[in-house]
């Protein structure tokens, strides 16, 4: 037996390594807590810049502004957690608002009108799920298509004009306007929606199957998860929550607006992706989405209080989103390397 060698060198620590290790640790922390740190920093900056910012009425106002976005983004979170996308939700919000107001103007009782609007959400969700899981259309393309179709339906039934209902149906406005215990009603709806979605995602077998499908759909399928059904259900929930938001939006502005909800697509994607960087590594989760929505709302509110023109708010949302996701992916890469 010829032993060529058995080399054993004493490990030496380079100073360079130590420095890079500290950098790495910092990056990992920024990735994990970056969104929360950003939220904290915003609060501090605005608190200093505007004496009004940290008052109770203003904070309630921030939550109120978050409420509808949070409900849409919460529903979207389920679709994202299943590994899919839904670009049609904003248009669903608009359509649902139009449906409910037009039906009311046609003399349909308010509860029935609401029910039909929500049912429309369920139908759209089923269509999206069918496209993606049965016809296997790429979700981005498929939901872009349904989104466009929803705009078409919307304009067909509304004629592209707003449907004001505030004078005829003051009781409809009571759904979203006003407050209980001094807290705006939408905040309660948001809390309820978030709680339900959190339970669904974290405590039910459906939620686990959803995560499995999003994590590795082939492995999930071969383990016995009905991945098609799970994904379709996620699309239905997302569209349903978008429809709920549409009704609340119509109630809060007293009118069905043909394009009133379109912007929710972008803001809810931003919130969900921002939220995916909170605490967990790149996983979509409800609490994260909520933090994402609130962070954006705090930014908008604070910037408005400081008197910055509104275009800056959108710049802010974009930069915040990119920065958070970039930090998160850098942090993840470094912590894994």
């Amino acid at each position, binding site marked *: 037996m010829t032993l060529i060698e058995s080399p054993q*060198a004493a490990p030496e620590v380079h100073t360079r390594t130590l420095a890079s290790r500290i950098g790495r640790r910092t990056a990992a922390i920024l990735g994990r807590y970056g969104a929360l740190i950003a939220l904290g920093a915003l609060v501090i900056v605005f608190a200093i810049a505007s004496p009004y910012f940290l008052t109770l009425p203003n904070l309630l106002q921030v939550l109120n502004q978050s409420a509808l976005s949070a409900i849409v983004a919460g529903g979207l979170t389920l679709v994202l957690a299943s590994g899919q996308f839904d670009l049609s939700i904003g248009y669903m919000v608009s359509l649902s608002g139009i449906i409910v107001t037009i039906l009311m103007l046609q003399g349909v009782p308010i509860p029935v009108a609401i029910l039909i609007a929500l049912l429309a959400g369920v139908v759209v969700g089923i269509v999206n799920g069918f496209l993606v899981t049965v016809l296997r259309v790429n979700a981005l393309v498929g939901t872009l298509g349904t989104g466009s179709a929803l705009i078409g339906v919307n304009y067909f039934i509304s004629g592209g004009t707003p449907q004001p209902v505030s004078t005829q149906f003051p009781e409809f406005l009571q759904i979203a306007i006003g407050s209980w215990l001094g807290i705006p009603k939408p905040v309660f709806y948001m809390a309820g929606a978030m709680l339900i979605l959190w339970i669904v995602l974290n405590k039910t077998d459906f939620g686990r199957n959803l995560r499995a499908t999003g994590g590795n759909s082939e492995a999930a399928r071969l383990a016995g998860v009905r991945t098609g059904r799970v994904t379709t259900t996620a699309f239905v929930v997302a569209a349903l929550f978008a429809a709920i938001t549409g009704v609340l939006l119509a109630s809060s502005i007293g009118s069905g607006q043909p394009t009133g909800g379109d912007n929710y697509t972008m803001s809810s994607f931003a919130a969900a992706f921002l939220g995916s960087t909170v605490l967990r590594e790149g996983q979509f989760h409800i609490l994260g989405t909520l933090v994402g929505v609130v962070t954006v709302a705090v930014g908008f509110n604070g910037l408005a209080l400081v008197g910055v023109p509104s275009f800056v708010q959108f710049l802010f949302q974009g930069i915040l989103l990119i920065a958070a996701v970039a930090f998160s992916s850098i942090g993840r890469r470094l912590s894994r390397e």
Partner: protein
Amino acid sequence: MTDAAQRIPLISARGLTKSFGAVRALRGVGLDILPGQVHGLVGANGAGKSTFLNVLAGVVAPDSGELLIDGEPAEIGSPRRAADLGFSFIYQELALVPEFSAIDNMTIGVRPTTPLGLGDARRRKALARGVAERLDLRFPLDKPVRELSIAERGLVAIGRALVSDARFVSMDEPTASLSDVECERLFAIVRELSAAGVAIAYVSHRLDEIEELCDAVTIFKDGQTVASYERGGYTRDELVLGITGARSVQDAIETPDAPVRRDADVVLSVRGLAREPRVRDVSFDVRRGEILGLAGVVGAGRTETLRLLFGADRPLAGEMTLAGSPFRPRSVVDAIARGVALVPEERRSQALVMDESVLFNTKMGGWRAARGVRWLPFVADGRARAAVRTMVERLGVKTASIQSPVRTLSGGNQQKVVFARWLSRDVGIMLLDEPTRGVDIGARRQIWATAEEFAAQGGSVVVVCSELEELAVCHRVVVMVEGRTVGEIEGPGVTEAQMLEAIYTQERTSS
């Protein structure tokens, strides 16, 4: 030896260390790889072989230590630099672009000779064709590689290394998905490369191959190189001892003493099963308590047969009977409901969610059964955790906690998680597809023991395993050639030679 001593090593490593967080992946790696040398790297999963190769590939920067290339200190730093040095890497998880053809995949690293890369297509094609001839590739080179079998894709990956005129080629488990015939072809290629002066790092768990092919071998254990030997300078026992620390060959490779069970009930009966092109005419019976092996070369239709049994694909012809009643699974869920389970071929892509925990992966697909109250959708987490903990202990899964992501586990322990999933459900038949691929010797033994225990308790096992010698655990082996079952060998103690003879006499008559 004198010859070797005169040559300057192409690669010389001294005291390399590397930590990932708290994990010390390399704790002192040193070895020399000479030009033209086939250098075997052996060791359990997680022993540091892959990390060492990643250092050479410029993917991982070592924390400390010295690396000499051609006798000069060198820092590789980036994959691009590694390519410039003429280093080529064939990974276990083949890094091919599925939509690209074999030609495009092979020439992906070829830099254009004209400013815009115009007119390069012909040169690429010529390069690829030349290599294909050397490798004796018999499949279309212009089809997307996703349409090729796994073995064929492996050959494409080797082709890429040849196209780049490498001075050093690293092969990580290159035979894992190859049949014996294809292995022989690969060995011929390796020898040819070696004769042309190319140095080769050859990672394998198959010690036969190491003994046959390698001019030198280095043993990795716990991130260190514990010994290097020259060809013929070691015994099998020494290798096994170096790798495992304690076990002897006899212990490391299972020794079955299984009685034949001719009298037991037939649980699953398959007649004339077909799904062209891979499965043409498959018939066999599986009895209660039996481990049945499916032997054959890659492309014989073994994996595809298991998929049909599991409802992952639907047969176009044939009948199946399960426990006396017709069995026509329309989906995986149907098959599972009838007590059929599959441990798939590709652990990472087909069996596990790598970022999720051991707990999550064990329960995956079975969360519905983990409800606290049957008609309420809520999971009883405490009970699920307790059940998984028991199962993890029973199978000896080595993990820091059941909450650790499975990505942090070694290959063998990941595979045990897949077994734990099925053993915690009501399963009568386990279909195992290459259950020991990429698994080190110690875990391999435990995996076979688990299968044996499952059969001993009245379950049935159908297993596909390209390492024919391991099919010795089977009570009976069915031989498949080109999508047909062509014969049976009664065990116990079916030998590799018996199976090879059955496979190759059939191949000769069928061609």
